């Protein structure tokens, strides 16, 4: 057992009585069970098949503080650049895992855009119905989070309602006092025929290492529509394990876009459970990383019911000494006839030192399905490069333009124009190209 795991176990004894929800026996029970499972499993190593290519050892060795305090010194000016400034949004801002009401803009009017802490304390029925029902027990990071997490975003959109503006969720770590280990949790519920758009970001604004173990459970009821965008552009000191689990009912439509441009190590465990007929699941993403950065996308679509559609498109551009991992699993259960599942992972290596491991994994138990998958790893097309250069566009610009065009393909489903513009700008910046291309 690692020192960090030991620290976590002993901290739990101190922390548990003070956590939000500690008077709810169901929650207390859930936490203790989850902690027991974590104690039995500990942190994964590269000997675990699911962690074969991602070594956590270097990021687990820091002396993390586990019980974090909020930070009142953070002002709007400090966080402005992490928000979409040209768009009116609801905002939920957390600093070291604690809700910051003065930086946030929440609502309880027609729908709940508030905190997981509030849900734990005020909505025992909802907690009993949903908490832990999306993220599977037995996944060690999920269990660890279940044991500790007592704040984060709580969003509930009642039947037939559309949230009038996007919701921005910002998790900040300020760690002047040393490395910080934070565990936050989202509970997102879109009831029948409800609609919501979410933007989420984790950001380390200190200069010390941070480790965020994050769980997000999303429930989309019949005909609900959820767009969920994750912008991952954290500092070189930040590690993120993002466990996002989406449960979909009949004819719901959920899109999760993951845009990764930074962080020391990012592991995305993104799971879709297609548990209603004619549900549509979209997941796509762009990864552009460089020296010393690792991004690991582990996705699962679990088709449990007939006539569902899933689409998965991940684009990766790797510079410097970076490492990308893509593991995309598509499960089609016996009952899930007429499933239509598409998966594609395309990568460009722009450096000799960059590395990509990509692995599609299909497990199909139904006999009448359409599943396609593909992955490519390559360099830029020489033919196209010559074409651009013969028109007078210098080599560097031509390469940038082509790389941009390669990536931008995965932005097609972004529904918030301001976000699309911003992503375009970040991509252009990362690739060192003229923004004029990105219009």
């Amino acid at each position, binding site marked *: 057992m690692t020192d960090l795991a030991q620290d976590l176990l002993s901290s739990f004894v101190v922390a548990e009585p003070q956590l939000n929800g500690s008077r709810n026996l169901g929650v207390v029970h859930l936490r203790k069970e989850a902690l027991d499972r974590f104690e039995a499993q500990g942190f994964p190593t590269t000997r675990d098949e699911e962690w074969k290519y991602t070594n956590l050892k270097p990021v687990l060795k820091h002396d993390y503080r586990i019980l974090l305090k909020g930070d009142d010194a953070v002002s709007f000016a400090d966080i402005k650049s992490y928000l979409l400034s040209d768009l009116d949004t609801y905002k939920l801002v957390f600093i070291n895992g604690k809700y910051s009401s003065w930086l946030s803009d929440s609502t309880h009017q027609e729908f709940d855009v508030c905190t997981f802490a509030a849900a734990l304390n005020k909505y025992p029925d909802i907690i009993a119905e949903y908490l832990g029902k999306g993220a599977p027990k037995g996944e060690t990071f999920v269990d660890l989070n279940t044991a500790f997490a007592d704040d984060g975003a709580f969003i509930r959109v009642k039947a037939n309602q559309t949230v009038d503006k996007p919701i921005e969720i910002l998790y900040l770590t300020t760690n002047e006092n040393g490395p910080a280990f934070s565990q936050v949790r989202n509970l997102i519920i879109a009831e029948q025929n409800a609609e919501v758009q979410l933007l989420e970001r984790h950001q380390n604004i200190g200069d010390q290492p941070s480790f965020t173990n994050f769980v997000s459970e999303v429930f989309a009821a019949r005909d609900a529509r959820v767009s969920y965008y994750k912008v991952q552009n954290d500092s070189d000191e930040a590690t993120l394990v993002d466990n996002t689990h989406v449960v979909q009912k009949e004819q719901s439509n959920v899109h999760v876009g993951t845009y990764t441009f930074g962080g020391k190590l990012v592991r995305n465990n993104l799971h879709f459970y297609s548990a209603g007929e004619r549900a549509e699941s979209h997941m796509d993403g762009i990864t552009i990383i460089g020296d010393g950065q690792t991004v690991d996308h582990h996705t699962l679509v679990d088709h449990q019911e007939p006539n569902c559609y899933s689409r998965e498109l991940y684009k990766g551009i790797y510079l410097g000494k970076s490492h990308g991992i893509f593991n995309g699993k598509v499960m089609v259960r016996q009952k899930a006839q007429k499933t239509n599942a598409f998966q594609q992972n395309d990568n460009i290596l722009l450096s000799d030192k960059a590395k990509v491991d990509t692995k599609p994994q299909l497990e199909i138990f139904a006999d009448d399905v359409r599943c396609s998958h593909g992955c490519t790893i390559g360099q830029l097309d020489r033919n196209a490069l*010559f*074409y651009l*250069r*013969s028109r007078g566009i210098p080599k560097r610009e031509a390469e940038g333009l082509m790389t941009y*065009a390669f990536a*931008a393909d995965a932005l097609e489903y972004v529904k918030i124009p301001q976000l699309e513009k911003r992503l375009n700008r970040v991509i252009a910046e990362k690739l060192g190209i*003229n923004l004029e291309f990105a219009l």
Partner: protein
Amino acid sequence: MIKINNLQARVEDKEILKGINLEVNPGEIHAIMGPNGSGKSTLSSVIAGREDYEVTGGSIDFEGEDLMDLDPEERAHKGIFLSFQYPVEIPGVTVSNFIKTAINESRKGRGEEPMKAREMLAKMREKTALLEMDKSYLSRSLNEGFSGGEKKRNEIFQMAMLEPKLAILDETDSGLDIDALRIVAGGVNKLRTADNAVVVITHYQRLLDYIKPDFVHVLFNGKIVKSGGPELAHELEEKGYDWIKAENA
């Protein structure tokens, strides 16, 4: 304008150009004809600076300057344009952004100021009209989903926008129906001045009914084996390439 002297080139170990001599002056139209595999496309790629070919001998002189050490983009800045036989699809980049970038990079390469947005727009409007293109072309992704004819028209549109001194049209007629051919050829003819020159590379005589060459050359097995006036194209159309092959066997 351009003087090609004893040009030899190969790709990997295969000799393709075996000593090409060609001189093109301002105001002239030259046609290069020849059977498949004779080296026509290689010649155009080598002039445009494609790095997949290794030039093993000879020289290319453009307006008194040796081209050999110049990158493709530098050649473009000097006024060389190649219309591709197979234009490349670039998803995600619109025609108008692409051409704007190409024009302004070329101007930058020549030490000139970028073109004013208004001027650019007016020029785009004028040239799309010239080629009977719908303006919606401009906002489409470059060549993506274009028909064969649209791609070729788009090549000539780029030529019209870039106003090169020397335009090399590589099999521009392939994939064009008769109406598209008329429009494309008409565009090329309208772009002619006393100061620019065109080299038309083609397998068939058909295009030369519309773009009338001053000189016709026959390329066979990496060499120009025959040169003449427009009548040579007609002779080839009538007799095919077999007599050329027989003469040079």
